[in-house]
């Protein structure tokens, strides 16, 4: 899904209007974005990555114009390189086009245009449109009929907006993709969806399939396929656009927590066969590492700690490093595969660590959510976690998907024996996460302990990364002090911090040695009068020592971390909400950190 925006008549503010509109369309995806501004000439700025990258590029090198178009994209296939980002231009650079949809017959048109001497700069279907317009202009057509002639050649679905140097107007066409016009007294807008320009006007015109429009600063006309003028009704929207994209939730974070069942399904889709116990991950070939080093930051670092545990359990030496440390002081790498875990694929520290590893001759693999991101392009292999766009700055669903994807990675590249039970557990996760979302009492816990002085999280084995991640989430969105510890470390220092005003969250799953020992640590905490919240599947008697129990379903050890983490996400979310924090955009934090 993509989003497009355009405006005419906002001299001096065109760029701001476009970038603001793109941010409103961000929920439609954001792996690359671009704008084109027109007037006498046409200037295009586009970047892969989030809209912030485009914004940074524009700050360094601002562009001006009285007309403009913009585009934001989330690709499901094909890399979002700078070249493939919209807008696309013709050979002369006088025509710029943004497009939402799919042009089915682009290959034959492209072949024809290439034969006629046109140069193409991208792999996209869209690029045929500016070249077709260019050809029609060269034959003497005016811009409006040039777009009409171009669109006449296209089969498929599209919403297209084009600008042409020397004309202060935007030309648009629609077929099977959404497009709406916004009208103001001295400015005109277009977008995939009303919220993109809702801050400027409430008067809108919906285009129908097969219709064209010309937008000028103080005028607009809609025509049909034959060029006949169409009388259009002007609708007034009285509704508020603010909530669009959040699916009825107060925050993107809660929406994304609730998207985890779907994200986990997507992660596994087509990659596992439970009945035969096989895992098939595209792009990994015959990878069978004899050692693995993970590099990552933040939430991804916690996922990476867990990934290394999976490899060690399979008998393969594996370690996890903070990317920022690894980049400047790498350990001996030997034959190890170096795996970078980064949601955005653009995290500067992780990229730097991966580059350092490659520089030393290591094979590298990216575990990322973003198709064609820098990490994906630069590494020898890529494993996509397929979580879909995540808008909330604090990672939620992408952590769950990272854990699931790292399980696939270990199952697919390490000698794990019979994988059927593990695959069954991964396939059960979506339904079990849904059960937690339906039944969780995390909100009560948040209420009970919202005034706490600090929060501590403890766990062993796979629950240790969960404890660290639970604390990070709490810090990020509540601004409260929170720390995660390996449960056994508590008595070696941190226990001094524990008071009756510091709830301790203990993750206790299964009935193995790790669980029993964690119960022992819980008793130590309880003896110091700290409130204890047990996150447990009920296989131990930890509930006897806990003030509150958050249940998780019983499952295979490889899957329990995802479930326990969901409860902690919800506790953090509800605590932050009670405290009135800016949950989706916590102070001082950015979604993907592109500086070292």
């Amino acid at each position, binding site marked *: 899904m993509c989003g497009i925006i355009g405006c005419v008549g906002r001299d001096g503010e065109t760029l701001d209007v476009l970038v603001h509109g793109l941010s409103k369309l961000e929920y439609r995806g954001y792996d690359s974005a671009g704008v084109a501004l027109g007037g006498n000439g046409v200037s295009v700025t586009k970047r892969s990555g989030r809209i912030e990258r485009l914004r940074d590029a524009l700050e360094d090198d601002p562009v001006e114009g009285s007309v403009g178009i913009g585009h934001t994209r989330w690709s499901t296939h094909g890399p979002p390189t700078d070249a493939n980002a919209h807008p696309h231009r013709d050979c002369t650079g006088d025509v710029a086009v943004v497009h939402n949809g799919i042009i089915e017959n682009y290959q034959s048109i492209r072949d024809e245009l290439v034969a006629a001497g046109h140069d193409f700069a991208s792999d996209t279907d869209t690029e045929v449109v500016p070249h077709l317009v260019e050809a029609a202009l060269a034959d003497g057509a005016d811009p409006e009929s040039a777009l009409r002639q171009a669109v006449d050649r296209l089969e498929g679905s599209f919403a297209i907006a084009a600008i042409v140097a020397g004309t202060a107007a935007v030309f648009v066409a629609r077929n099977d993709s*959404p497009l709406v016009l916004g009208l103001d007294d001295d400015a005109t807008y277009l977008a995939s*969806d009303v919220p993109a320009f809702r801050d400027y006007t409430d008067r809108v015109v919906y285009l129908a399939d097969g219709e064209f429009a010309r937008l000028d600063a103080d005028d607009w006309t809609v025509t049909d396929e034959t060029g006949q003028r169409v009388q259009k009704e002007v609708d007034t929207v009285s509704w508020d656009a603010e909530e669009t994209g959040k699916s009825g939730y107060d925050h993107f974070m809660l929406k994304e927590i609730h998207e985890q069942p779907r994200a986990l399904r997507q992660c596994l889709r087509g990659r596992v066969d439970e009945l035969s116990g096989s895992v098939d991950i595209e792009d990994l070939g015959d990878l069978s590492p004899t050692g693995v080093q993970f590099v990552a930051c933040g939430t991804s670092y916690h996922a990476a700690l867990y990934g290394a545990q999976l490899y060690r359990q399979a008998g393969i030496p594996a370690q996890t490093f903070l990317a920022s440390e690894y980049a400047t002081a790498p350990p001996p790498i030997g034959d190890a595969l170096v795996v970078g875990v980064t949601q955005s694929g653009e995290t500067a520290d992780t990229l730097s660590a991966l580059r350092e590893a490659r520089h030393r001759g290591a094979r590298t693999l990216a575990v990322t959510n973003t198709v064609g991101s820098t990490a994906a392009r630069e590494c020898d292999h890529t494993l996509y976690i397929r979580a879909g766009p995540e808008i909330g700055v604090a990672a939620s669903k992408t952590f769950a998907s990272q854990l699931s994807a790292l399980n696939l990675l270990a199952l697919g590249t390490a000698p794990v024996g019979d994988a059927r039970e593990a695959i069954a557990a991964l396939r*059960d996760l979506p339904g079990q996460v849904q059960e937690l979302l339906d039944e969780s009492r995390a909100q009560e816990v948040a209420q009970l302990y919202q005034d706490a002085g600090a929060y501590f999280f403890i766990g062993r084995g796979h629950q240790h990364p969960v404890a660290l991640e639970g604390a990070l989430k709490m810090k990020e969105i509540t601004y409260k002090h929170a720390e995660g510890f390996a449960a056994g470390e508590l008595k070696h220092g941190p226990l001094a911090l524990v008071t009756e005003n510091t709830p301790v969250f203990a993750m206790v799953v299964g009935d193995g040695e790790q669980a029993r020992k964690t119960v022992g640590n819980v008793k130590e905490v309880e003896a110091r009068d700290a409130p204890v919240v047990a996150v447990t599947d009920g296989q131990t008697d930890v509930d006897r020592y806990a003030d509150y129990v958050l249940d998780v379903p019983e499952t295979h050890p490889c899957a329990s971390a995802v479930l326990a983490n969901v409860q902690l996400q919800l506790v953090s979310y509800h605590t932050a909400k009670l405290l009135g924090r800016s949950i989706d955009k916590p102070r001082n934090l950015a979604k993907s950190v592109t500086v070292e």
Partner: protein
Amino acid sequence: MSVRTAVVLAAGEGTRLRPLTRNRPKPMLPAANRPILEYVFDSLVDAGIERIVAVVGYKRDRVQDHFGPTYRNVPITYVTQDKQLGSGHALLQARSAVSGPILVVNGDGLIDARTVSAVIDHFQTDPETPAVAVLERQDASQYGAVDLRDGDIVSIIEKPNTDEYRLINGGIYAFPETIFDEIEATPRADGELAITDTIARLIEYDRVRAVKSDGMWVDAKYPWDLLAVAREVLARSRASESERDDGVWVADSAQVHEDATLQSPVVVGPDCEVAAGTVLGPNTALGDNVTVGANATVQNSVLDADTRVDAGSTLLDTVTGQNVTLGVQTVVPGGPADVQVGTDVFEDQRLGAVLADRARTRGNVSLSPGTLVGPSATLHSGVHAAGQISEGTEVVR
């Protein structure tokens, strides 16, 4: 102004479909392998609706999670009805989210894009006067029955005690913006406000036009109706997965062993795994990520997402909720049966069993015809169960 916005009423639980509505409202129950509401949205998008306003309430997160911010590129705005006080009250909640004329549809029954288009087209000829879809049904007395004169509705009555009605209110309305004032002016009956109350009032002093349609219109009243709904969807070839064979639809991401037998009509949803020696169908639908073990037989059944059927089980006329686990050799021999729901008894229904979300049988369990198993109930090995088993119960032999 023409009708571009549809308000979809999806806030009610649908209590008669308990225990399947424990975690989601009726619009999210499966018609074959997709939620009922998806078919409703499809019909709206196919009819050219540009914006959907969904009124949600009971377990609203399940609607929001499934559809997200857009459906087939059409933006969805969610508004909440906190207390379910009738369809008119539900519609009022959408007032601040819409402008201009609106289409209003119920989210809990299967409808046809043709009917939606017909209502919109008819309404546009006179956009001051409401238009309502009506359909012919032999059992009109079971629904909101209507009577017409010269193409206008002259009476509307819920479940009349007489067989003389032949037409029903299809629950698809086109209204001018003034409908909100009309609803507010309608006196509440027992605290509730139904759209049909407002229509009954309107026809006293104004016109309400009827738009006759013979398009698909299917409603599930009771849990076992989901079997009939699935049959209807499959018979009309409305399954959305790829058609592998005549009447056999299998999602591209599903894995069906070559030694499994799929008997038409049958649909297998995304991510399902079907082992060797199983027999699926006829009239069977598997939702997302369902697993059927070796040598199991599933016929005339609807298995919802994440259900596991272990090896050697036999399920006839069975409805499962989500994430139900049926251990090895679970046997549901199928209806007909007298089914007891609360204190009501429904005689001679074709129902093997209903198992609500996260119910579980441990193995070698058999269920008498008409058994209703509540959410998260567990039937341990060797149990033979019948009647109603309530939520969370553990049944041991």
